[in-house]
């Protein structure tokens, strides 16, 4: 950990000049810095969640924030509907609440407040109300956790009009996307790939918030033979696949969606049309998952450019298995490479 408080506040002082400090950070720590920066930039940013104050969150993403920001970091009663419901009220009062849902599998008690209230309130008020609420959700498997701690439920929220859904795949995006999500006047479901919390990379801190980053996919690697579309925890897998494939003489393009809803259809279709072959990877069950939307969208816009059907690699259509079987459940290098083979054979 090379960042110091001094560096961070230096970042704040000079933010208008877009000066950034670069330092090696884990993804979890990048999120922490993103929150800190957002709270310094705007005193209306408040955090709500279970165990986020003195504990700093079960993944330590809010570590040290209660010490710096006092009662702007709230340990709530244990009630997810309450967390989102009160966040809505705070947003109506002009605050910008950032909620932490402790684990993916515990967002469902808040489903009604998210889907029937948060997502719809702006439209319901004919655009009069703004609901700048960010809901952070550690997502996905691969850490050997017990039940309900490894879910990938992005499809539910992507299907819900009125929400933005974002997933970060590496430390820089974690920092940038989180700040952009908090600065955004819409509700944002913000997914943090929990098994990547400890991934480390150089991260540029400070600088102004780039709102555009929120809706844009990013080509992480250019390629010509096929496109691998991924997001969140699968970004690292996709990169690994591209490397292995390269060593076998196959050139893969890797597209990190980042914004899961709305989709960056332009970027997706550019890549699909260019390579003519697409594999989409996610941890969530394939059935009516985001991969289905990717496949359908690509077919719709790039039908005549496609050399093979879009391949979907994802979780099987069964409840998340016990930890010791998750290795077989989660898409990995082999399964994605297999799909690449299929799509390239097509």
């Amino acid at each position, binding site marked *: 950990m090379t960042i110091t408080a001094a560096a961070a506040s230096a970042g704040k002082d000079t933010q208008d000049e877009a000066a950034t400090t670069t330092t090696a950070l884990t993804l979890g720590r990048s999120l922490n810095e993103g929150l800190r920066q957002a709270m310094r930039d705007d005193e209306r940013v*408040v955090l709500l969640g279970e165990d986020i104050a003195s504990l700093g969150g079960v993944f330590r993403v809010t570590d040290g924030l209660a010490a710096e920001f006092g*009662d*702007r970091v*709230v340990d*709530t*009663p244990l*009630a997810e*509907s*309450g967390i*989102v*419901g*009160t*966040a*809505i*009220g*705070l*947003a*109506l*009062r*002009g*605050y910008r*609440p950032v909620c932490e849902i402790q684990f993916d599998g515990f967002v469902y*008690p808040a489903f*009604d*407040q998210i889907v*029937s*209230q948060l997502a*719809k309130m*702006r*439209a*319901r*008020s*004919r*655009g*009069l*109300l*703004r609901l700048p609420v960010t809901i952070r959700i550690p997502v996905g498997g691969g850490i050997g956790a017990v039940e309900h701690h490894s879910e990938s439920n992005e499809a539910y929220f992507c299907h819900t*009009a*009125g929400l*933005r859904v974002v997933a970060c795949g590496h430390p820089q995006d974690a920092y940038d996307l989180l700040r952009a999500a908090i600065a*955004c*006047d*819409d509700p944002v479901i913000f997914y943090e790939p929990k098994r990547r919390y400890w991934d480390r990379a150089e991260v540029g801190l400070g600088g102004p918030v780039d*709102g555009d980053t929120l*809706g844009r996919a990013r080509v992480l690697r250019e390629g010509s033979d096929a496109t691998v579309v991924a997001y969140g925890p699968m970004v690292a897998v996709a990169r690994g696949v591209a490397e292995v494939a390269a060593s076998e003489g196959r050139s893969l393009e890797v597209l990190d969606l980042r914004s899961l809803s*709305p*989709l960056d*259809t*332009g970027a997706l279709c550019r890549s699909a049309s260019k390579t003519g072959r697409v594999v989409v990877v996610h941890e969530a069950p394939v059935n009516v998952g985001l991969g289905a939307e990717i496949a359908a969208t690509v077919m719709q816009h790039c039908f005549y450019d496609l050399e093979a059907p879009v391949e979907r690699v994802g979780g099987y259509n069964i409840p998340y298995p016990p930890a010791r079987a998750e290795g077989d459940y989660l898409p990995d290098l082999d399964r994605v490479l297999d799909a690449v083979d299929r799509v390239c054979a097509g």
Partner: protein
Amino acid sequence: MSTHSAASSADGVLRLVDPAGTLDDQTAADMLEVTGDLVRGLYRDMVLGRRLDQEAYSLQRQGELGLWLMSLGQEAAQAGSIRALRADDRVFPSYREHVAALCRGISPTELLSQWRGTSHGSWDPERYHFHIYSLVLATQTLHAVGYAMGVRYDAADSVVFTYLGDGASSQGDASEALNWAAVTSAPVVFFCQNNGWAISTPASKQYASPLRERAKGFGLDAVSVDGNDVLAVHAATRRMVERVRAGGAPGFIEAHTYRMSGHSTSDDPKRYRDDAEAARWQAHDPVERVRLLLTARGWADEDYFATVASDAEELATRTRRECRALPEPSLSDTFRATLCDEPESLRREREAFETYLESFL
């Protein structure tokens, strides 16, 4: 069968004016300065509210509204409570608070739009400090608590006020809100209009112990009041709100009232309740009792009653006119109101929709 019966002072339920219009001066003196002005104002609120409700009901029957949820019988609970608030006290209503809305200055146009199907909520909550209606039961109670947390952050002294029904009290959200309010000491008051019914479900199937006791069990300060006695409601609310404003624990007021009509224009109450029950409640009419009081004390004469009646007719005419003049909604507006900075994909979708529509012109 329901056991919901009219409140009486006996069971710890506050009452200041009995159904015969007799004011209990003794008790009132403790709670409230009862003046002719005050009572006349509340009377007018109730009469206007009732007339609006009646007109909306007719409009629905004539096909001008898709649905209407009648407030008949609940005028005292609503006028008495809303008039105890300061203009900047933020209100989170449920969906039947038409009388309260009217008191806040919301226009018939704004009120009827949702039920005509031209919007889902049409007034500006900031302007009236009155949030749009929430149809998903009890969700608004948590919004109120969150808003109150914000008031506390701002070190402001306004109070947040939320309405819910006896049925809504069974939702998990309602309990989470009570608990959250108590834990955070948020400046919020819950006002439960216990009108005896949740559609066809009597209150007796909704809870086993008085809601006031439940609220106390969560640590709120709670009182019960005769919800058809506008002065009792007004006094209790005033007291509760001022206590909360001064930093006291959050409050809960249960107003015992009665839904004199069906649940909505789609509902036929004969399927599930006795006409006799409504007839019994007729004797507890909230408006009549105030009329009797005004007359008995000489606080109003026939002229006054005639003026109010004619104001009510004017409101009815205006309501009808404004209802019919409501502009038709356009899907383009919903597109634009979905997200703040219309994302490209949504813009393209909207444009395609608009082009498609034009193809029919």
